[in-house]
């Protein structure tokens, strides 16, 4: 136990005493022992990076990204992706009491063969998305940045972070959705050092907006039908079609509160909880901005990590959980006799629950590590009337391992991962009478695809060489192959960059 406690103290002084050369600093960033402890803390606290052991670090890199699925796992994101991205990230301690960190990302690519979705940020906005019956490739472009500042005043630490993400997606052939999404986030928080531990509280605010417009250029006419989905294959059929109702605006606001307990001196337990509430309404700008649906997302998540030592092994266990509930309301809209669409009543018709828990363990010695993990996921979504239901449960087991080594001017990191995800149960009930045949077929196929047992095999590597004490070039790559009972999916990335 004494070793474990001294480990934390070691982490806290590590930045100033050891991690000076760039390869040392990179090694520190990649070290899974640091990662299992500090990997979560930024999410739960806007001030935690100031107390983290990480040394000043910056990197900029270009990435080529490739995904190819024989059968789309989530057709709403297509069966493939090909794109490039530029990323830059930095964490700098400006003086003894303050630090800044930030990151930027620009990515551009093509999602291949997207089906049953035309809306950007499908996973955020589902089930209320606009979809067409045809599908096709979607061009996607993303800009994202965030910046944070944290300062210490004795035992009190204050911090703030601002983030912005903009996404532009469009299709070059009919049907032609053009979506512009912007996502603004602001976090502010304080921490207080209480003996061995530091307790942090962070409040967050989020503002989301997306304007979506679908057009058909073919003079012969539209080649697809537009659907306003409302959950599990149900639709707001009054606004289906290709003429007047294909412009949708999503507007939302959200709040969150997170708490983090992390070591300040000789403690060694990390624990965090976070609660988020987000409401997003969809409007029809062409119909006097009448709100059609409102989605209320409530999420609670948390973690704890406990680093400790067994003999000469650096060890740790980490537990994470997440629960998300979505409540969806559809508005009853009047007959617009006077040309103005008005909401008569709001009906709560859709609800979904998603629960996920995972337990990770880590053992590391001399740069070699193994990391077994086990996880469980349960999902249930239902629609009140006509009754629709989808539920499934998945159990996953995984083992990853790797090796990190600094050879002086050269540094290398290799890792391998295997994971099996087994479907424990699945249930899909869609009313045939009230579901269009093509949608019923598509949803059944999608659900079956989503509930397949699967095995993941992945490998990643990074090679880095120092140009001088403060600058290095690196090349990183990762390959993952998903094996399904009768098909496969390949994910690959290749990055080249500098770190300083």
């Amino acid at each position: 136990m004494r070793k474990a406690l001294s480990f934390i103290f070691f982490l806290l002084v590590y930045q100033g005493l050891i991690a000076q050369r760039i390869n040392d600093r990179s090694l520190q960033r990649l070290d899974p022992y640091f990662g299992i402890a500090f990997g979560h803390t930024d999410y739960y606290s806007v001030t935690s990076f100031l107390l983290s052991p990480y040394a000043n670090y910056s990197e900029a890199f270009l990435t080529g990204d490739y995904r190819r699925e024989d059968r789309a796992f989530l057709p709403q994101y297509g069966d493939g992706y090909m794109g490039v991205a530029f990323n830059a990230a930095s964490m700098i301690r400006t003086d003894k009491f303050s630090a800044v960190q930030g990151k930027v990302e620009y990515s551009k690519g093509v999602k291949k063969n997207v089906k049953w979705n035309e809306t950007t940020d499908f996973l955020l906005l589902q089930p209320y998305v606009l979809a067409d019956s045809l599908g096709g490739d979607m061009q996607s472009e993303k800009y994202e940045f965030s910046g944070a500042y944290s300062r210490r005043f004795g035992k009190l630490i204050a911090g703030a972070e601002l983030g912005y993400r903009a996404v532009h997606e469009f299709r070059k052939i009919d049907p032609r959705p053009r979506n512009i999404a912007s996502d603004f986030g602001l976090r502010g928080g304080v921490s207080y050092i209480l003996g061995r531990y530091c307790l942090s509280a962070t409040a967050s605010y989020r503002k989301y907006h997306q304007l979506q417009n679908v057009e058909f250029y073919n003079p012969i006419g539209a080649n697809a039908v537009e659907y306003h989905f409302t959950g599990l294959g149900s639709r707001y059929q009054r606004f289906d079609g290709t003429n007047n109702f294909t412009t949708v605006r999503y507007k939302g606001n959200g709040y969150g509160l997170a708490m983090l307990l992390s070591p300040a001196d000789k403690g060694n337990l990390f624990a965090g909880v976070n609660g988020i509430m987000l409401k997003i309404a969809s409007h029809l700008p062409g119909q006097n901005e009448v709100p059609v649906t409102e989605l209320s997302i409530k999420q609670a998540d948390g973690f704890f990590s406990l680093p400790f030592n067994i003999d000469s092994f650096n060890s740790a266990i980490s537990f994470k959980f997440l629960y998300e509930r979505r409540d969806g309301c559809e508005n009853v809209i009047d007959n617009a006799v006077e040309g103005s669409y008005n909401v008569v009543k709001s009906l709560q018709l859709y609800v979904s629950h998603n629960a996920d828990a995972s337990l990770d363990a880590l053992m590391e010695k001399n740069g070699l590590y193994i990391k077994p993990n086990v996880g469980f996921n349960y999902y249930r979504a239902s629609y009140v009337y006509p009754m629709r239901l989808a539920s499934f449960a998945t159990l996953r087991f995984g083992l990853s391992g790797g090796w990190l080594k600094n050879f002086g001017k050269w540094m290398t990191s290799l890792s391998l991962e295997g994971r099996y995800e087994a479907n424990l149960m699945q249930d899909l009930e869609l009313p045939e009478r009230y579901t269009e045949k093509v949608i019923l077929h598509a949803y059944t196929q999608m659900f079956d695809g989503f509930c397949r047992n699967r095995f993941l095999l992945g490998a990643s590597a990074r090679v880095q060489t120092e140009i001088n004490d403060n600058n290095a070039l690196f090349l990183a790559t990762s390959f993952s192959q998903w094996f399904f009972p009768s098909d496969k999916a390949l994910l690959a990335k290749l990055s080249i960059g500098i770190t300083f």
Partner: protein
Amino acid sequence: MCEVSFYALLPDGRAIKSMSVDMTPEGNFLRDMNTRQEYDWPVFNAGKCTITLRKGLYIMAFDTKLEREDGTVAKVRFSEFSIPDKARDFTGDTASLTIKLVEL
């Protein structure tokens, strides 16, 4: 959900024994205007029937035959709420509607 009671009324006020609506013809419908969901008209007994509908705005119409209490048969039409401009809202937990039939 909204529990709706329909009361059918003949122009001359004579009592209705039973009435059922064949949903096959396109002109016979009980439809949620927003979701376009179709419901089957229930059988009217003694001129009355009850159905549970999703809350919303409804358009409805039918042509059918009914049997009066005296055993005579009449061909009737109901079309008062057949177009969106005249949609009827059933947004409470319960509702009732008098169906004013026209004899054909």
